[in-house]
């Protein structure tokens, strides 16, 4: 038997939409077109009846499939308990990288920055720049030291028994230029950091400095309250 619907592109297009008309998931404009066609096309209406029969049997078949056993949820929750939760920021950043989306970590960061005042942003930018400079200096220093031979203590990576250090954190309002000037004045350099708590380990001299002298340097550093918020001699 010839399929007259298949040979008519307009009717074929409507026919292919019939299943979505039957399940109610169709655009309003398409619904109106189909209803208008059904009113005058008995063949199309017969096709819809076939679809409705098949749909009813498909639902029945699926309903007979039952449900998963309770052990699935138990196993799932046990798996969740056993698995450390990913850091949300890391997951968002990974989502960004994987999907190339505007949301995720970059979206969050954008929202955070948008909520800040221009002055605060300027300070934050300067501080971030200073941290980059410090890290760069630290890396360069480490590279030069490695090239020069010598030894390192096992307990403190990047540090040497022949040097003296302080542990410090910068004041939130410290500016990049001020921090650079601070390091120059004290002839200091970052050897480690920033750590998770925001601290840096800073070299302030060689082994010829006594403990009292290191304490004195730390005290002078601490006096610069606009730049540092914490300073203490460190092994």
């Amino acid at each position, binding site marked *: 038997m010839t399929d007259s619907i298949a040979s008519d592109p307009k009717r074929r297009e409507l026919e292919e939409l019939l299943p*979505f008309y039957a*399940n*109610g998931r*169709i655009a309003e404009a398409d619904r109106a077109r189909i209803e208008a066609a059904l009113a005058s096309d008995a063949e199309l209406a017969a096709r819809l009846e076939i679809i409705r029969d098949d749909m009813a049997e498909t639902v*029945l078949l699926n309903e007979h499939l039952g449900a998963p056993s309770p052990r699935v949820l138990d196993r799932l929750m046990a798996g969740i308990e056993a*698995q450390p939760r990913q850091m949300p920021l890391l997951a968002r950043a990974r989502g960004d990288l994987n999907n190339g989306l505007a949301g995720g970590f970059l979206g969050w960061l954008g929202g955070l920055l948008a909520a800040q005042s221009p002055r605060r942003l300027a300070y934050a930018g300067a501080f971030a720049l200073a941290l980059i400079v410090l890290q760069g200096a630290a890396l360069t220093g480490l590279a030069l030291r490695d090239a020069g031979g010598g030894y390192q203590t096992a307990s403190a990576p990047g540090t040497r028994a022949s040097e003296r250090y302080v542990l410090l954190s910068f004041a939130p309002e410290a500016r990049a230029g001020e921090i650079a000037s601070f390091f120059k004045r004290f002839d200091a350099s970052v050897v480690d950091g920033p750590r998770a708590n925001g601290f840096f380990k800073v070299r302030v001299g060689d082994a010829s400095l006594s403990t009292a002298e290191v304490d004195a340097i730390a005290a002078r550093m601490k006096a610069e309250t606009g730049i540092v918020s914490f300073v203490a001699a460190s092994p």
Partner: protein
Amino acid sequence: MHTESDEDLVKRIASGDRLAMKVLFSRHQVRVYRFVLRLVRDETLAEDVISDVFMDLWRQADRFEARASVATWLLAIARNKAWSLLRKRRDAELDEDYASSIEDESDGPEVVLQKQDKGRAIRACLGRLSAEHREVIDLVYYHETSVEEVARIVGIPENTVKTRLFHARKKLGEMLKAAGIDRGWP
């Protein structure tokens, strides 16, 4: 009574809320399970797949895009896992071992027809469609998905969704016709 939306539950899951996870699982487990079971035809495997699906949801909840519904998202993950399993099974040439379908229409459509049960004959044929045809039929007829949603779940263009569904329907009609049920098409 206020019912929290799926999207709100996913937000809670993204922050590590286990109770939200249980609520969302309870809400979707049956449909996802049935979708997978129709593809893999093995209850134990289907349970393994949905367990993996919801574990993925737990891990990736903060990547959820509100452009798709949570149900669509879950079905898409489930579909990928089920097909991955099917491909492995085919590689191992075990597909024929799964001949006893989960629908358990132990009679073929011809035998069913002799028993004068058209509905059972249709269900028997539905169980004998290819996996590609079964999934598109199930998605539209049982899971009530739109063209766009099927396209997203299966990963094919919208026009392909319509033509694949057309061919699945046609195949179903041909199987019924061969069993002695002529519905006038095809």
